[in-house]
């Protein structure tokens, strides 16, 4: 996963160099815009994108944050922030997208998340003559890079770059000294936890909590309840939009885990914590407050 991040940086660097050399600064509309995306593809737009379909909630948030939200003509069913995003046409899933639904919006740019599942979609859209930019967005470090590329494609370079600088400084921040430990539980049967190669692991570190499964390199992994009990985290963090405890909290086999027994759950709204977003600073602050607010319990 670390190698992944490196590659992203490298791609970003190459993209910056390529675009800086190719078009110069403040390219006039007639000169066109050329960028290289994270899949190594070159995208050339004759003029800044005006009809964009965003196929990942994080991209939608980034576009709104850089003031290009009014250019969106399509979003996924999962894009629920900011509230204005809800009035944009829903094209269904983002992974893989419904090509016809996307094409029907008549976009002049489609922003696609880079994954093996999405590779055929990129090729199909290209065949239809619709420009596609394919971007990574797994880690905090990916946000700034994605913002810069989207800024170029929408000609919102200035606000995108300042957004990217904020994102980069958030990503580069040294982790706070950890005062608590936690486990992120994605699913209970079988138990799936979040490992080091993830956005949430980094988020926890910034908020001053140690992920007890930081030694697992992949973004998520299946473990046994016994392993969770042995690692003995102070808190169990669950992505949940409701205020009630997850159903496994009451189950006897889970009560072997101390934090479950003592009801030390962190119910994190998926809208804020479920994806890397420009609101990362708020997510860190909120997680830190919850850790400290409930830290006094036995």
């Amino acid at each position, binding site marked *: 996963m670390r190698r992944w991040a490196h590659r992203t940086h490298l791609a970003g660097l190459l993209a910056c160099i390529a675009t800086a050399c190719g078009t110069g600064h403040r390219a006039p509309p007639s000169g066109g815009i050329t960028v290289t995306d994270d899949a190594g593809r070159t995208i050339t737009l004759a003029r800044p994108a005006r009809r964009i379909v965003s196929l990942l909630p994080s991209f939608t948030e980034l576009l709104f944050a850089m003031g290009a939200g009014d250019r969106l003509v399509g979003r996924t069913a999962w894009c629920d922030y900011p509230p204005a995003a809800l009035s944009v046409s829903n094209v269904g899933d983002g992974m893989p997208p419904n090509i016809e639904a996307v094409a029907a919006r008549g976009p002049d740019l489609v922003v696609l998340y880079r994954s093996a599942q999405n590779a055929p979609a990129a090729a199909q859209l290209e065949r239809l003559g619709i420009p596609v930019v394919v971007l990574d967005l797994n880690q905090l470090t990916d946000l700034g890079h994605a913002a810069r590329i989207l800024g170029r494609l929408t000609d919102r370079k200035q606000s995108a770059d300042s957004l990217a600088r904020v994102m980069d400084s958030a990503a580069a921040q040294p982790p706070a000294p950890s005062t608590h430990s936690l486990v992120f539980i994605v*699913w209970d049967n079988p138990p799936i936890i979040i490992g080091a190669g993830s956005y949430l692991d980094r988020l926890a570190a910034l908020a001053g909590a140690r992920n007890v499964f930081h030694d697992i390199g992949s973004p998520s992994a299946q473990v046994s309840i*016994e392993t969770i009990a*042995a690692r003995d985290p102070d808190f169990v963090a669950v992505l949940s939009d409701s205020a009630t405890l997850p159903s496994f909290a009451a189950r006897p*086999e889970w009560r*072997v885990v101390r934090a479950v027994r003592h009801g030390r759950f962190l119910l994190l709204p998926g809208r804020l914590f479920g994806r890397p977003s420009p609101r990362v600073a708020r997510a860190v602050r909120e997680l830190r407050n919850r850790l400290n607010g409930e830290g006094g319990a036995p």
Partner: protein
Amino acid sequence: MKYVALLSVALATVAAGLLLGPASVPAGEFLRSPIVWQLRLPRVVLAYLVGGALGVTGVALQALVRNPLADPFLLGLSGGAGLGAVVAIALHLPGPWALPLAAFAGAVGAMVLVYRLGLIGGTGGAGGELDPRILLLGGVAVGAFAAAITTALVSLAEAAELRNAFLWLWGGFSAASWTTVLVMLVYAPLPLAVIAAAARPLDLLALGEEPAQYLGADVRRLKQLVYLAASLLTAAAVALSGVIGFVGLIVPHVCRMVWGRLHRTLIPTSFLTGGILLAAADTLARTAVAPRELPVGIVTALIGVPLFAFLLRRWTVS
């Protein structure tokens, strides 16, 4: 002698399941540790019971349709039970008791469909001949249909959570607790007893349906009872641990190679062997790649296939 060996292996497997695990339990605290009492012991017991139930189900179904390929999976029972369980999860039916019931409803639904497809030459209550070949074909078709509906439900679900139901469907014992052991202990004995009581008629059935009829077996009733019992066992197993293939297929063959074809011995030995296979597989799943865990169905196949191949080779050579 073979029985003593089997029992010792069974005990050793359970002991290994209790002693091994990703968490280290100090020897002094072993008998008091909640990790042993609340996690390892119910998990080993449940894995053993489910493995045993699947083994016996395999024996019963292979005798019933007189085909060595028959298992709960092939006859569509697992598919139906999985569909029932996913519907229960989608409807948020609560508790450890609702899931087996829903899975049972699914298994029975699949069973009835397959049974009606397999019944030829008669309509409704008039009674016809149950054709084992048609029964198998029907099972495959109904199983595929149930799997398609399950996949559609899971992939169309609004809640991302239901997508994780797929993980559960692949099988595993993460949810093992004394409650789930109790569910198994309530559901399993009756169908196990029905199958065990049918040991002699099942032997006769191996001779063919007509000879069995002449020798005094009520073939029609036997088929219905054993088929129903097998469905109930499959339903309980799927509801508690997802769809674990393969155990019901190979365990009967292994036991037949070692103990012969009499169901009086085949049924208990299949129970013990199925339990050993699944309990050992689950212990490996928990420990082999710790702190991570493997889906148990993968381990079952990884240790089961070489064992099966070895026995098959010896059997066909001699």
